[in-house]
């Protein structure tokens, strides 16, 4: 009998310990933090997909909770946004508010997003995303791609103030690079080897700068577009070849690490890198030079594309419409979005704390970082070429791999064009 009791007790202990291990809602690999529950209030969860503002979001969540009584928890994931959304939705555990990329809004909105057409902020922005005539995506900020320059590093060698407008064509740019090398800068450029940078940002500009973007992409799907003889493609690649030739890691370009490239750029060891204003979050980790900025990618063009950055609204909030979210949570999420746009504190959070270029006409921003100031300048002048938001999900990784082959010298330009063409013609068109 004693043995039996002992056995029962042991089994009970084991069961309890198992239950204790299994308890607690957990998203593996996510970091959750925030205000926690408040007395009467609703609790909402926010998914943040911009690592550089995660701390600011966590801090804001605490303050926001104290002020409004709405519990806010902020999450981040190292996964790609689409993959993370997929795991959360397949686990029936979506966030109340999710910050995603434009393409994710298009793929998720029809089934999972709340109609926000009646919100006040809709009239204050040109960048909101609508699906089926309903506004569903709240633009968080404006981001743009272009050539990042370190004006101080250039001035040190040329002795003249650097004026980006003087270098619009490949030839002018090449002459400057030559001058920098002659002046003692061993390698004036850096090239990121990350697939999202190569294919997601650089290659996609080739599509985005076509006179008829949608037509061109459809032609690519059908296998009818002649990339190798496309003037835009060749103009871009001429500049890319230049960047590659003067690249500090020219010996082994696919081994370049992003951290090293950003550091060299920040400290003026190199003068140029193709990137976007989000790169500031890495540049400011180093001893950065005072005068930096972004300029359009120099290229031989007559259509004005070498006078504009490529970009627009970036990162969109949408509110979950599934049964996993209550109406109270949805209302709290809408209030939060309104707070960002209409409340002075919300504005300050976006522009001062997070350093984001506002996508709303009523928000003024003076104290942005240098790259964001460049972006704001081009945006205010209407010199932004719109993003193409309907690239297939595997575009950046597959075409990025082809681009890396090009960098490593395994294919030539014609071979790269052929690989990209064959990628497109073997891919199912994205419906939109």
């Amino acid at each position, binding site marked *: 009998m004693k043995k039996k009791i002992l056995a029962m007790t042991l089994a009970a202990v084991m*069961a309890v310990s*198992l239950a204790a291990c299994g308890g607690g809602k957990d998203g593996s690999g996510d970091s959750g933090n925030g205000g926690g529950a408040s007395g009467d209030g609703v609790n909402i969860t926010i998914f943040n997909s911009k690592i550089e503002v995660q701390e600011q979001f966590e801090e804001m969540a605490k303050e926001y909770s104290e002020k409004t009584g709405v519990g806010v928890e902020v999450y981040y994931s190292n996964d790609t946004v689409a993959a993370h959304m*997929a795991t959360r939705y397949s686990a029936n555990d979506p966030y109340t508010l999710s910050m995603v990329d434009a393409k994710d809004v298009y793929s998720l909105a029809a089934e*999972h997003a709340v109609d926000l057409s009646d919100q006040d902020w809709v009239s204050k922005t040109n960048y909101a995303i609508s699906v089926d005539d309903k506004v569903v995506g709240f633009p968080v900020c404006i981001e743009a791609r272009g050539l990042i320059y370190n004006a101080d590093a250039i001035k040190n060698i040329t002795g003249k103030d650097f004026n980006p407008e003087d270098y619009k064509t490949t030839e002018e740019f090449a002459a400057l690079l030559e001058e920098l090398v002659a002046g003692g800068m061993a390698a004036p450029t850096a090239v990121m080897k990350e697939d999202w940078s190569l294919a997601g940002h650089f290659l996609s500009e080739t599509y985005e700068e076509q006179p008829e973007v949608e037509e061109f992409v459809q032609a690519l799907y059908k296998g009818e577009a002649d990339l190798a003889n496309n003037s835009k493609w060749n103009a871009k690649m001429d500049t890319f070849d230049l960047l590659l030739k003067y690249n500090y890691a020219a*010996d082994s370009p696919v081994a370049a690490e992003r951290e090293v490239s950003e550091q060299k750029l920040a400290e003026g060891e190199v003068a140029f890198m193709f990137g976007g204003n989000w790169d500031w979050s890495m540049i400011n980790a180093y001893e950065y030079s005072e005068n930096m900025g972004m300029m359009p990618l120099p290229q031989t063009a007559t259509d004005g594309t070498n006078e504009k950055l490529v970009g627009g609204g970036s990162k969109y909030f949408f509110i979950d419409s599934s049964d996993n979210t209550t109406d109270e949570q949805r209302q709290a999420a809408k209030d939060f979005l309104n707070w960002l746009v209409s409340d002075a504190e919300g504005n300050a959070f976006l522009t001062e704390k997070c350093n984001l270029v506002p996508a709303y006409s009523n928000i003024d921003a003076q104290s942005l970082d240098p790259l964001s100031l460049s972006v704001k300048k081009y945006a205010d002048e209407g010199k932004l070429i719109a993003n193409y938001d309907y690239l297939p*999900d*595997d575009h950046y990784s597959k075409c990025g*791999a*082809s681009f890396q082959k090009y960098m490593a010298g395994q294919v030539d330009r014609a071979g790269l064009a052929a690989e990209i063409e064959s990628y497109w013609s073997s891919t199912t068109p994205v419906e939109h």
Partner: protein
Amino acid sequence: MKTNTMSYKCKQFAMFAGVTTVVFAAVVIIPFLYGLYLTFTSWDGVSTQKPFVGMANYVSTFADTAYWQALGRTFIYAIIAVILVNVVAFILAFLVTSGVKGQNFFRAGFFIPNLIGGIVLGYIWKFVFNRALVALGESLSAGALSTSLLATSGGAMFCLIIVSVWQYAGYMMLIYVAGFMSVSADVLEAAQIDGCTNVQTLVHISVPLMVSSFVQCLFLTITRCFMVYDVNLSLTKGEPFGSSVMAAMHVYNQAFTYKNYGTGQAEALILFIVCAVIGVLQVYIGKKAEVSA
């Protein structure tokens, strides 16, 4: 008390294995069956609809050349890594049981890499291959070393194998150490008296008596190598140009990044079957070779 009735047996089972069975079913059996069901749907991972498509995912799996390339790459990686891990682990185990000075210290030292998580390990070695070795190569002006190994397709695979060996050899060494210790001193002494040399003792006495250690180590290394993901992700991320994407990484990309959940699941199932067949076969053959003293 009758102990051979059905109800007694059921109660006994429920008392001792009930909780475990429920948990095992909840976290292994049910997800597995659900996953099996998903291979027959064209679910994208986020949609509320899961349209039934029959065998279409298996058809696209067989047509997915990138998957078969990744699987082939995994085979090559696994074969080389399994052999190297076990050879190194066995030699280490032999050395640290042969009575060298401070052998407990060495045992702990060799085991430590296994305590570092695969992701961290990947980043550490990335630094070694990308910076430390390159800096060394430049200062010695040795041409081959001055560019990063990780930038070439063969080099990336080579790095993966090195890191895996470094990671697992210590762990497998412990199992081999246990095997060496389990060989009775009587038998070894008898062999010595009969005139065996050290090598003969090792080959004809110790090794046959510790076959179960080999079976365990091979099983562990084979399954781990086939399922490798963490080191793959943090060390090479499949780069350069997708030439180091292993099967597990391809499955993950297919399911979550390219949003073909059903196809990804079907590919995962095939990977599972491959692993299971190899693992079971190897254990079966190994068990046959076991002898008892």
